[in-house]
């Protein structure tokens, strides 16, 4: 995992922990010539607003410092600046605008991260590290989770992000236990098998990708167990308790659909059918638990009866809004 040491040049207090999308400009930045102050966009493409902007250094005239000041006033400022070379322009810009400024020994490791598709990073204790993004797509059977998750994956790849798509249950051995029926399972045993799969999957697959800076798109996550096993009568509190060491996703999306409609969609799709779960009454109960979780703010509801393109648009907006990622323009 790559960590990059930084040196604080202008501290504003807010730099204790800063997370945001990385933008690497591998030249000297001339604020007046290179940034459109009305939009916060670089004339060469891309936005500086809300980003952690890394550049070789600053150049240009007396006017340079006023550009950053103006961006701050308009709410279009970057979260932080990183330069390889300190000069009076970059320092004055950062100081009069109260934007954190860091120096980095060399820009090239940042360029490398960026070229590998790492976009979301955090600066903490004067160290920059990739910070992956965990996106969980949830919903009852037939809501369209897999379709939407795979589309989202394609969008992220197109936009240059390092991303993976993965699903749960993940391990074939766990699936085999469910499907073979050689072991008689109680609802508790089912729940614990699902959770066991999830802990292992998270630890060996998801966590590594997040460390490397990927966007991990999970097709089902811990909410599925709460909803599905809760629907057969297990205590929702217990289902939460056994999963408490699994982190919250950055973006949790619940695709909401009427269970009958979901089953109808599912009938036309024979792949990956865990017939055991597909009982209308149980799906109704699961939906109710999902809606409770939405009401508690754990996930955001997206209407799954919309067209896939509309659903994706909502998800992209949600990611933009929550993480300030520059996604909409390249995605849609």
């Amino acid at each position, binding site marked *: 995992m790559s960590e990059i040491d930084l040196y604080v*040049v*202008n*501290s504003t207090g807010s730099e204790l922990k800063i997370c945001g999308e990385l933008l690497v400009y591998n030249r000297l930045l001339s604020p007046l010539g290179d940034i459109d*102050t009305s939009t916060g966009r670089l004339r060469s493409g891309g936005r500086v607003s809300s980003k952690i902007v890394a550049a070789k250094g600053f150049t240009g*005239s*007396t*006017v*340079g*410092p*006023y*550009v950053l*000041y*103006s961006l701050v*006033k308009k709410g279009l400022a970057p979260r932080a600046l990183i330069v390889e070379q*300190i000069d*009076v*322009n970059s*320092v*004055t810009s950062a*100081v*009069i605008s109260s934007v954190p*400024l860091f120096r980095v020994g060399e820009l090239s490791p940042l360029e490398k991260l960026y070229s590998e598709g790492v976009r979301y990073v955090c600066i903490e204790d004067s160290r920059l590290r990739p910070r992956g993004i965990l996106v969980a797509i949830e919903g009852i059977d037939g809501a369209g989770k897999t379709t939407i998750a795979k589309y989202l994956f394609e969008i992220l790849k197109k936009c240059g992000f390092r991303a993976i798509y993965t699903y749960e249950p993940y391990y074939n051995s766990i699936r085999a236990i469910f499907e073979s029926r050689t072991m008689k399972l109680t609802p508790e045993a089912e729940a614990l098998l699902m959770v066991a799969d999830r802990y292992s999957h998270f630890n060996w697959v998801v966590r590594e990708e997040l460390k490397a800076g990927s966007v991990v798109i999970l097709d089902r996550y811990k909410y599925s167990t709460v909803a599905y096993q809760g629907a057969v009568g297990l205590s929702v509190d217990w289902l939460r308790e056994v999963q408490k060491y699994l982190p919250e996703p950055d973006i949790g999306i619940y695709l909401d659909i009427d269970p009958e409609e979901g089953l109808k969609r599912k009938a036309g799709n024979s792949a990956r059918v865990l017939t055991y779960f597909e009982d209308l009454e149980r799906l109704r109960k699961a939906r109710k638990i999902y809606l409770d979780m939405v009401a508690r703010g754990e996930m955001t509801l997206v209407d799954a009866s919309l067209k896939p393109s509309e659903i994706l648009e909502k998800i992209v907006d949600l990611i933009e809004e929550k993480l300030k990622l520059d996604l909409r323009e390249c995605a849609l």
Partner: protein
Amino acid sequence: MRLSMYLSREEERMLSGELGGAVAKAVEVLVRVGEALGADRLIEISHAHVSGVSYFNIGDFGLEFIEDLQKIGARFSVFTTANPYSALVNYGDTSFKEEIYVKQLKIVDTLRKMGARSFTCTPYYVRKPSVGEHLAWAESSAVLYANSVLGAATNRETGPIALLSGICGRTYFGEAHRGVPAEVEFVVEVEKPEDPSEAGAYGLLAGEFVGESVPVVRGLSNYPEYFLKEFLAAFATYSPTYLAILEGVTPNYSRVDTSRAEKIVFSRSEISKAYSDIGSCSSPLYLVGCPHLSLDELSYVLSKVGSVKRGEFWITVGESVSRHLDIEYVRSLKILPGSCAVITRLDLLGVDCVITDSAKALVYLPKLAGVKAYLVKRDALLKMVTSSE
């Protein structure tokens, strides 16, 4: 705020807000900038000179910065001058949009309210600093003049820093405040400039050659000050440094060790390249006064120009200089006090090309004013203006 810079008791009080929010903000910014650039303390200054006054340059955001300071009670606490504003005049019958006038006048008005004394790029004609005096000047040509000709000491400040220095009377103790360096890397010799435009042409060559390094310059010791002014203004357009040690001029120049320096000689044949054929400039605007003319220069120019026969002739001077004159307004001869044509979007006024005696203007007119520019000698320019051919 975590600060490592040494502050005097007075500066601590300023920072704590005892002298008002604007002073506190100014000291805070100076400390932060100074620390980032490696300065260990602040230094008291006697004269600040603010750059970034043209609306075309600083736009709405610069205006807002100045107004924000004024709103929290900012006043200049030391003698403060400011750079010229854009030339708010007609060219022929063409004028700017009203918005430009309004915004430009707002900038000037706000700075005057804060206590700016005069608008010019030659603040040393308004108040001449003495040897060793500490200043916070932001106009590059004036910085070089103050350090190299007058032996004063100023960082090459950015616009906002000079503004804040004027408010709190301090700047950070940068290299320029330590006196002339003990040793230089380059000695640049120039061969007998015959007029100020030639001195400027040498300045471009020297500035480009030395880059960030402070040089010793030979060959300018017996010239009038306006030759030095043109040389240094042009020098500063290409070099980001704060000083050019002029042999025979700069106080303490003889203490500098040049024994290991690389020597380069620029000859007359090399400056001739700066003077290109003006044949394609059939309807020119004639311009002198970059940097602003001294009173002596202005008197000389006016004595040579009876009536303008061709095009328009603009002369830019500081406000303090123009006060000495009883100027008769002539349609085609415009004396523009406190103004700068180079930072004015002349293209918007329909100007196609400019003929000037300033090497600095030659570089900046295409970039900032959006027009072609041609260099001629001063006397040749004055002859062109008055001849009907």
